[in-house]
């Protein structure tokens, strides 16, 4: 047996870097879910009546639903009564500035490489930091406001821009959409809200950094991004969690709305705790992300790098309603040890001349299982719609698996839908070639994996490309340039 296989597996088995816990006093509601808990969360957030009602409707609907079972993942049943649905660091009042934020929290983000003090931040990125159930700080708010851009925590948006929230909330992902979306709609605690008005090009990257800290809690955040006519915004999302033996549930909802000529670029580097080498612990990541290209020539682009979580269940999708609108999905999913990912996208073509591109790169190592699941649906009115899908899988070792489930429904004969798929093993020949040039096996693996992901990494904003490369065990110089 080639000795390098064992060595390669060792190389890809890095320790999780962000597994620490912040000892901080948190306020947590009792475990379990009922209407009182839903009302309690809503009351804590001082929400208007309509939102409390919306949550309750979602909760009642959720009670009628079953957890989906069609995905190609296996996990212990989730006990929804054992979960705490709300947990927040104790703060006397909502901090007005960073000086009022608990220094322990600031240190946590610093440790994660996300300094929240504006002078220390990367100049071009505004950050909303969400800690367990609440947003602890949002940076560069004033600067963004000068351009008319609203970027704040979801809770603040409910207080300060209730009409906007009410107009758009649930319009892309209705509370009845699926089991996890219904649960989220009932108990979501915080998240980010972003509104870019007509004709404005958002002057900096916006980002939300999610951190799960408390034990036995779920994280249910909600993000809503609206880009009005001709607006542009690039949004980044990052996340980490402490190492724990038990599994924790993360069920988020993200809704994107692009009006005529608007463009939203949404990038994720998902690095939730993946569990240990034996598959103990790790985050269950059940996320609903969807955007709608409402107006003509609008564009929504999802880029994701999924390296964390024990279970990933996630299909960032685009509804292409506006004529000539464009949807894109670029994905790298890496599963190692006992991680399982079932991820992909849905592109729903409604408008004429709509176009979508799907590029999925799956890397499996150890006992990791990686499934691509994608739906391309062309409705009757979608004249000349086009889709191009490419799914590539790379296997490292011989105990892992890669699976592809492409679904196509084409109801317009002028549409062109193309699908290509490849599966390959990390090649001994390539590794030897690199080594014979003096490059260590470790660097060779990184180099080849990073080369495999290059087309997706190229879609990431610079700051995230750095992070993504590091995650893949690659220095930035790697695949870029």
């Amino acid at each position: 047996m080639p000795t390098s296989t064992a060595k390669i597996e060792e190389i890809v088995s890095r320790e999780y870097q962000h597994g620490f816990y912040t000892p901080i006093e948190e306020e947590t509601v009792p475990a379990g879910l009922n209407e009182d808990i839903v009302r309690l969360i809503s009351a804590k957030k001082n929400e208007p009546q309509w939102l409390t009602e919306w949550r309750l409707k979602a909760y009642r609907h959720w009670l009628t639903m079953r957890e989906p079972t069609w995905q190609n993942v296996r996990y212990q049943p989730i006990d929804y009564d054992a979960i705490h649905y709300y947990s927040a660091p104790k703060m006397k009042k909502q901090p007005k500035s960073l000086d009022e934020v608990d220094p322990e929290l600031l240190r946590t983000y610093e440790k994660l490489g996300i300094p929240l003090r504006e002078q220390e931040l990367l100049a071009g990125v505004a950050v909303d930091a969400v800690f367990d159930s609440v947003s602890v700080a949002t940076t560069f708010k004033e600067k963004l406001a000068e351009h008319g851009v609203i970027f704040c925590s979801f809770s603040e948006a409910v207080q300060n821009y209730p009409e906007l929230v009410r107009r758009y909330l649930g319009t892309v992902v209705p509370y009845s959409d699926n089991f996890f979306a219904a649960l989220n709609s009932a108990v979501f605690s915080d998240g980010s809200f972003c509104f870019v008005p007509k004709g404005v090009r958002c002057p900096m990257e916006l980002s939300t950094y999610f951190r799960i800290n408390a034990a036995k809690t779920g994280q249910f955040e909600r993000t809503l991004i609206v880009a009005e006519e001709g607006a542009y915004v690039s949004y980044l999302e990052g996340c980490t969690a402490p190492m724990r033996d038990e599994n924790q549930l993360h069920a988020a909802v993200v809704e994107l709305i692009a009006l005529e000529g608007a463009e939203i670029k949404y990038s994720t580097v998902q690095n939730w705790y993946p569990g240990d080498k034996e598959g103990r612990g790790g985050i269950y990541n059940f996320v609903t992300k969807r955007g709608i290209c409402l107006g003509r020539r609008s564009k929504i682009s999802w880029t994701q790098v999924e390296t964390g979580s024990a279970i990933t269940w996630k299909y960032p999708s685009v509804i292409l309603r506006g004529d000539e609108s464009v949807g894109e999905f670029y994905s790298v999913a890496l599963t190692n040890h006992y991680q399982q990912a079932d991820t992909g996208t849905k592109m729903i073509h409604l408008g004429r001349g709509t176009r979508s591109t799907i590029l999925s790169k799956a890397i499996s190592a150890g006992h990791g299982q990686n499934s691509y699941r994608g739906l391309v649906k062309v409705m009757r009115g979608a004249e000349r719609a086009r889709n191009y899908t490419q799914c590539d899988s790379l296997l490292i070792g011989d105990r892992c698996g890669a699976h592809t489930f492409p679904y196509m429904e084409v109801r317009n004969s002028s549409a062109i839908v193309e699908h290509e798929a490849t599966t390959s093993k990390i090649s001994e020949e390539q590794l030897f070639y690199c080594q014979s040039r003096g490059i260590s096996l470790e660097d060779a693996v990184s180099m080849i994996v990073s080369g495999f992901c290059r087309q997706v990494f190229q879609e990431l904003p610079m700051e995230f490309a750095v992070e993504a490369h590091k995650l893949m065990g690659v220095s930035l110089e790697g695949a870029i340039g």
Partner: protein
Amino acid sequence: MTMAKQPILEIRNLHVSVNHTPILRGIDLVIHHGEVHAIMGPNGSGKSTLCYVLAGREGYTITEGQVLYDGKNLLAMSPEERAQAGLFLAFQYPVEIPGVGNMYFLRTALNAIRKHRGLEPIDAMDFLQLVREKAKLVGIDERLLKRSVNEGFSGGEKKRNEVLQMAILEPTLAILDETDSGLDIDALRIVADGVNALRNDQHAVLAITHYQRLLEYLVPDYVHVLIGGQIVCSGGPELAAELERRGYAELGSQVTAVVQ
């Protein structure tokens, strides 16, 4: 000079099997600094196998014998250690690495070797200049440098890319596995020039080839004939010419008679 007498490579009675099939059956070969050796031999005689064993590829079982590189046990070293110690193999079939930029690959390789020699990573501008200069020397289109390693390169372009790597890494012992095959006449001269540029009493070359033509540009000190996993005869440059005239079959049958 006493330096020149120290062999860079010493192969003693090397036997190698692949999947229990003996491929190399007792190779003896000594190469000194400053020498150029050529190995010729029919298809399947074990030339590439020898190259891979020297470069450290997996999948080969050494059943007997030893190999010393600069007096050290070569077979105990990992492929990257061999490269860092100055051994270079130009592949008969260079490998494509999609998504990895050619320039980046070259720089990573050069820096790995520099690090081993206790040198700082090369400055980006200096590197660019070095690559441009060498690319010109080996006649490689600069556009190839911006593409992924060997991906979609023509056969000849891949071979030139190997020579470019060699020119940049400046190995102590360069092993060329049929680098001349598939090259046009001009390229052949360029390869030879590339090798000749390395030729001084610090460097050594082991060139595998089927054609005497390369050896006209690259006059070897010794020519060895490998048949059936054994070096059946060795001689000076004139042996290559003789082979070209008479073919392996005749030589082979003569030698087989001697061996048995």
